[in-house]
């Protein structure tokens, strides 16, 4: 349970949510937006989070809208909605290296690596991206798609490139709610490959220390566009990251392994240091990262 008295508000519209936040703030009460609540409830129980008011946004239509084919996913969409949307195509999520075709598949793969099946019934896209944990893997495809974040708050609404909003953590002003992510579906259409032994356009690899249901040591999501290879990473550093310098290294000529190593070096030179913790050393994570990136390059590239 949440071990302190709190007020629970259920908003039906964006305006209700933002107005409630503003009013509670004006009354001197701390407020938080509430999605699936998995992280909020567990952190609150551990006395690592406190708020006097929780504002539930899951009933708001703009937050519930799920139209990935049209390039729109609301923040209240559950991760399993992404996973289940592509199971019929035969793409299975969770850990394996799959060069899968179609942007929808990459959404499913990244979402499907998070937690376990039952927990994914509760975790929302917005909650995962806004969470305090360092992994936030559901955001990776949106970074690759160069998605835009739809945000609303006491100062009004704005649409901002996600890469500008997500700098280690979401840079939201007090009272702002990220309510949807959108992207141009035509711009992320996979480039057909000349290789007959791989599917086109996308790569995903997730490495854990022990079982599949675990926080990742590294998660790599890659995509090939007409302009070259894109890569977004989670687990290796303390936050999800897509690095222009790393991508430049990946798109240089050379053997996949060399380019992958150069990409990781470029990433760290920018300040995104590969981390060490009780699960793995930085050296081991770095090796996994280089290996996964090299594997992705091999899977995605048209042979010259």
């Amino acid at each position, binding site marked *: 349970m*949440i071990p302190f008295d709190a007020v629970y508000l259920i908003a039906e519209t964006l305006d209700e949510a933002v107005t409630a936040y503003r009013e509670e703030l004006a009354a001197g009460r701390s407020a938080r937006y509430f999605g699936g609540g998995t992280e909020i409830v567990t952190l609150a129980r551990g006395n690592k989070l406190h708020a006097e008011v929780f504002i539930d946004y899951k009933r708001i239509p703009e937050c519930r809208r799920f139209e990935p084919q049209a390039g729109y996913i609301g923040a209240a969409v559950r991760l399993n909605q992404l996973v289940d949307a592509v199971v019929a195509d035969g793409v299975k999520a969770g850990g394996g290296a799959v060069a899968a075709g179609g942007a929808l598949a990459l959404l499913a793969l990244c979402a499907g690596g998070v937690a376990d099946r*039952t927990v994914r019934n509760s975790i929302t896209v917005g909650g995962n991206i806004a969470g305090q944990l360092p992994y936030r893997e559901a955001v990776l495809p949106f970074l690759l798609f160069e998605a835009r974040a739809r945000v609303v708050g006491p100062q009004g609404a704005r649409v901002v490139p996600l890469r500008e909003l997500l700098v280690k953590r979401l840079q939201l002003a007090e009272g702002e709610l990220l309510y949807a992510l959108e992207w141009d579906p035509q711009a992320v259409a996979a480039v057909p490959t000349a290789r007959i032994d791989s599917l086109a356009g996308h790569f995903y690899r997730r490495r854990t220390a022990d079982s599949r249901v675990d926080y990742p040591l590294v998660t790599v999501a890659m995509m090939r566009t007409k302009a070259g290879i894109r890569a977004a990473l989670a687990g290796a550093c303390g936050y999800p990251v897509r690095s222009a310098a790393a991508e430049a290294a990946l798109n240089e000529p050379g053997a996949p392994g060399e380019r992958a190593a150069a990409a990781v070096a470029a990433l760290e030179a920018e300040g995104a240091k590969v981390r060490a913790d009780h699960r793995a050393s930085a050296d081991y994570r770095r090796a996994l990262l280089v290996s996964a990136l090299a594997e992705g390059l091999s899977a995605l590239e048209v042979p010259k």
Partner: protein
Amino acid sequence: MKRFNSPASYTLRVNGEERAVVAAAGETLAHVLRRILGLTGTKIGCENGDCGACTVLVDGVPTKSCYTLALDAADAEITTIEGLSDTPVQRAFLAENGFQCGYCTSGFVLNAHALLRKHHQPDPATAREWLESNLCRCTGYEGIARAVDRAAARGSTTTQ
């Protein structure tokens, strides 16, 4: 906009019955089911969303009740283990000795029940993906896996 101060008064629909609840707004579904409604078949293990002992169905979807606020389920159909009776999954667990201490069993049964309602004949990867959400410290999982296979093979289309 609905507003719930603490303590909050609301109704939960549990196992087909409307149940009145007065509880703190921050109270989890697991605690409301057990302490207030007396439905102790839902167990509390890790209270961190890891073990699955607290699994219930919310609108037919497996949900870990230890991190779900009861208020968040106030407009849903909640099914606890007490709401299942003589289902194919339960008969299979008995036939295949799919339990020892029984603490994890209600969570496994509800999750498996939902799995077989969605996938009548789940492939091994799908069954594993679903059942990974529940931990058992006693059985080593063989009996549980056999039980799910048995229920799937014999068909679990009987509604419950």
